[in-house]
């Protein structure tokens, strides 16, 4: 029942997004521009790519992802949609998870496209460890989604919403982003996830679990009070 409610909310968001494609287009355009700018700024050679590939990729995900996450609750402000949602029989935690799932789908789509662009622009082979890479992306993106969604809800009523969301979210993303960047760099270099790296996967998983629980627990406080 609860799951069905979450999925309904997620489907609503995804449908709205699919019809307008606002956030997706904007973030895709933004990420492409950033990738091109980075390739001009850094003039990548294979040695440098060996060290920085993961870091660069996740930076792009972070920047472009902020656009998607911002829209998540901002979209509900018009016509008092947020109040309507809060008044509906869907529990607030269900609303949060539903929106998080929708954001997750959008972010993963964005990231897969970015990955392809990244491979082309920076001459990086990513098909090698694709399975492990997808797992790392999945875990890291969920971390970004869950923190971003709760802070999107938090900043929805502020004047400086577009500024406050990154300012609050990015420092909090340091632990999972570090883990994701390290893992991605080593995966893109062709090394599989071994006993040296498994620690970072645990960090990602732990972060995901803890912050999902925190988000579900406090979304009520944030939205309703």
């Amino acid at each position, binding site marked *: 029942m609860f799951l069905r409610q979450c999925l309904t909310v997620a489907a609503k968001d995804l449908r709205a997004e699919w019809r307008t494609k606002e956030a997706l287009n904007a973030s895709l355009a933004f990420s492409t521009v950033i990738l091109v700018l980075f390739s001009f700024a850094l003039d990548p050679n294979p040695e440098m790519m060996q060290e920085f590939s993961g870091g660069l990729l996740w930076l792009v995900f972070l920047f472009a992802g902020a656009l998607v996450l911002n829209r998540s609750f901002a979209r509900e402000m018009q016509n008092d949609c947020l109040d309507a949602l809060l008044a509906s029989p869907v529990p607030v935690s269900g609303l949060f998870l539903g929106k998080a799932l929708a954001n997750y789908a959008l972010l993963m789509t964005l990231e897969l496209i970015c990955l392809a662009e990244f491979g082309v622009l920076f001459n990086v082979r990513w098909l090698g460890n694709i399975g492990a890479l997808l797992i790392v992306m999945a875990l890291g993106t969920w971390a970004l989604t869950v923190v971003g969604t709760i802070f999107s809800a938090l*900043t929805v009523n*502020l004047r400086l919403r577009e500024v406050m969301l990154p300012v609050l979210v990015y420092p909090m993303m340091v632990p999972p982003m570090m883990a994701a960047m390290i893992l991605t760099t080593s995966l893109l270099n062709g090394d599989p996830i071994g006993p040296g790296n498994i*620690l970072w996967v645990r*960090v990602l998983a732990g972060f995901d679990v*803890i912050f999902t629980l925190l988000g579900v627990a*406090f979304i009520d*406080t*944030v939205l309703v009070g």
Partner: protein
Amino acid sequence: MRNRILLLLTAAFAVLIAWNLKHILLGLPDEARQDAIFRILYFHAPAAMVGLTGFGVGMVFSGVYLATKNFYWDTLAASTTEVSLMLAAINLVTGSIWGRQQWGVWWAWDARLTSMLVCWLIFAGYMMLRRAIEEPDTRARLSAVVSLFGTVNAWFVYKVIEWFPRLQHPGPVLSFRTGGRIDRQLETPFWWMVLAYILLAVILVMIRMRQESVAREIDSLRRLAHA
């Protein structure tokens, strides 16, 4: 009454810091360490200890606010976090200067400094958020949530950066947790410094609390005037 306590605490702080400074600068045996710069540890590490504790205490106060909805706790949380932000800044700047002297760089990406920097950024965001919200109820509620998330995150950051290979502390680490490594003579001023910082924090929080109650009085008077 409150003013008298404040005055007493300030006097205690002044005496303590003067005595401790004298002891640190002149009293410590010189043959223990060759260079004078290590004395900066006495300002660097206690600031971190008290600052980080302050952030945690702020989170606790935020939690109490959420449970009781009494604004007193929200004000206390904000004041404590603000003062801790100042202490974290002291830690960062003294750490940077120490690093410049020891390793030749203004900033070394080592575990402790970086995790403190991220902590500082998280709670600076907290202060920015508070400034952006005008309604006291919303402000208290939302900043309490940020404080909670921020403190959990700060713990995470510390753990993660400890494991990050590139960020190993390039120089000697004085870890008081290992215990027994530090000469008793060297250790005592350290704990007095911690006490001094705690006193300083309490004094500043008390001043800040008084300002907040004045601000609340202004708010209510303004509402009365407009009614």
